[in-house]
């Protein structure tokens, strides 16, 4: 009898568990796709079109049931995320959301990196790399580690330096302290000027600033003045051919297209050259041999493709070899005789 009761109790408990689990499970043909970072779920199952056609409360009830099922699935997923109690034991339960996976277009294009400054360009050219400096320097006088700069720096307080040596070739009457102060002011001013110039260069490179005006504004820099002087030279009746010019400037006026268009010979110029050109043309037209040597062209094309492939392969491994390795590799690879 006891066994029967135990069995009955177990069966009842089993029923209860199943009931609880049923209340939160939802049956779907196709699994939903979740993007928990956006709190998004996409249901690909085709909805019951026939049932939803009839207007009225039945449609609303159906839509609500569909929404309830989908929401249950989404919330189950969200509840499975790693959660913790924010703000101590009694605080609200907070779940850590993952990154959103659904790709949405940006609002604005991504920012362009700022162009390198004059020093950075020079350093890249020369191959100078940044030396990592230690933050503390040993001070011999104080016999301890002091900061490199700032409060209580290693060299002692510069404003309390009581001795300023007169350098070898200097004027003995000159005030050395004043000179040191003046030089520091000049250094600071030059640094600030360079910083602002770098900022202006970056800003100019970033945004398309409208073209500089042609009249002198007083704030023009070297490139703008060069452009303005070029335009001024060509704006005469004879298009700049008879303008007085500086000793090193070119005799020809700068062309408006900047040397991009074709240049034609004068009509009545070199008669001998014209004659020889015409005779050569006739010779080529009457000869049986084709002008384009097919084999040579094909070989040239093959060589070009091989060189490109070699360059692509080299590009991949370039970082490992270094300058010397690359230089040694180059003549061996691309030096091929013509076919």
């Amino acid at each position, binding site marked *: 009898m006891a066994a029967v009761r135990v069995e009955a109790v177990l069966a009842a408990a089993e029923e*209860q*568990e199943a*009931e*609880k*689990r049923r*209340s*939160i499970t939802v049956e779907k043909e196709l699994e939903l796709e979740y993007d928990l*970072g*956006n*709190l*998004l*779920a*996409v*249901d*690909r*199952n*085709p*909805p019951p*079109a026939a049932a*939803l*056609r009839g207007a009225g409360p039945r449609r*609303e009830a159906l*839509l*609500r049931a*569909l*929404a*309830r099922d*989908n*929401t*249950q699935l*989404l*919330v*189950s997923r*969200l*509840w*499975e995320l790693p959660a913790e109690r*924010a703000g101590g034991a009694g605080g*609200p*339960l*907070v*779940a*850590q*959301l993952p990154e*959103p996976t*659904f*790709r*949405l*277009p*940006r*609002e*604005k*294009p*991504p*920012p362009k990196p*700022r162009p390198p400054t004059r020093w950075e360009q020079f350093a890249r050219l020369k191959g100078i790399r940044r030396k990592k400096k230690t933050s503390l320097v040993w001070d011999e006088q104080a016999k301890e580690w002091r900061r490199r700069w700032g409060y209580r720096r290693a060299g002692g307080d510069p404003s309390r330096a009581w001795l300023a040596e007169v350098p070898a070739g200097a004027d003995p009457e000159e005030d050395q302290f004043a000179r040191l102060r003046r030089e520091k002011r000049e250094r600071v001013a030059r640094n600030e000027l360079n910083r602002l110039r770098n*900022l202006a260069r*970056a*800003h100019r490179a*970033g*945004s398309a600033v409208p073209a500089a005006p042609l009249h002198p504004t007083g704030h023009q820099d070297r490139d703008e003045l060069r452009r303005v002087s070029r335009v001024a030279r060509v704006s005469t009746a004879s298009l700049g051919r008879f303008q007085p010019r500086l000793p090193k400037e070119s005799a020809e006026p700068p062309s408006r297209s900047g040397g991009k268009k074709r240049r034609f010979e004068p009509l009545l110029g070199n008669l001998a050259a014209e004659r020889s050109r015409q005779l050569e043309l006739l010779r080529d037209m009457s000869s049986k041999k084709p002008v384009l040597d097919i084999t040579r062209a094909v070989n040239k094309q093959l060589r070009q493709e091989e060189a490109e492939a070699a360059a692509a392969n080299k590009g991949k491994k370039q970082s490992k070899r270094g300058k010397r390795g690359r230089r040694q590799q180059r003549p061996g690879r691309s030096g091929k005789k013509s076919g």
Partner: protein
Amino acid sequence: PLIYCYRKPKTKRAKRFLEKREPKLNENTKNAMLIKGGNANLTVTEVLKDIYAVKKPFAVLYKRKNITRPFEDQTSLEFFSKKSDCSLFLFGSHNKKRPNNLIIGRMFDYHVLDMIELGVEKFVSLKDIKNSKCPEGTKPMLIFAGDMFDVNEEYRRLKSLLIDFFRGPTVPSIRLAGLEYILHFTAVDGKIYMRSYKVLLKKSGCKIPRIELEEMGPSLDLVMRRTHLASDDLYKLSLKQPKGLKPKKKKNISHDVFGTTYGRIHMQKQDLSKLQTRKMKGLKKRPAEKSAEDGGTTPKKSKSA
């Protein structure tokens, strides 16, 4: 570096204002502008007001009517977008040919990217449903039902647009009890049903609560009309994310299928004879053994006579 427009900012506040609007790696939440057209009727105005209530504070509702036609001329929309720094817009109008018209769209770099025209067939506003509402600014859950949202290209863009519109700010963590608002979109029979429900979390036996829904917010029955979608390459350009956003991969760390994290530690060569191990008294060398090892040399020195 700041990209100034025409005038350089003279105050710190102006500089901060401009810095907020310039392109960034991690962008701000998109703002929406809700505009009334020249002949907007009551329905359309109510729709705009309700959507504004849902999207507050990331939306601006313009009170006056603006007589423009977005599908013909986009310059005025782009001007508004630049002035208010909004990249999403919802334009409502009404005429005999297109009654209760809503144009939903988004911008890229202050130029129109996508625009989809939807017709409102039925609208039930927030005021008409007499329930308790959820607090302003709640991040909604979004559910899209129906295979049309995957099959049809225009519906796919519409889905992307709706997610963009209603998504709200991106947050790293969320309070589980605060998941109160859900927007459910169903695409059936050429129509799109948008319903908003308030979520009630009921007790179920286990940790995960049982969901009950209560109809709350605006509910719209929409029909797709005209579309102006961006070309593929422009769309791809707008999707491009800068490299800095990719999470940096940590070397030496790997995960296996079960979720265990493995790492490699590189040690220097150790002299195993000098290892500090547990001292066991029984294994200690006795003096007799020690002298045998030393090869017979006695520790005591013998005195020479």
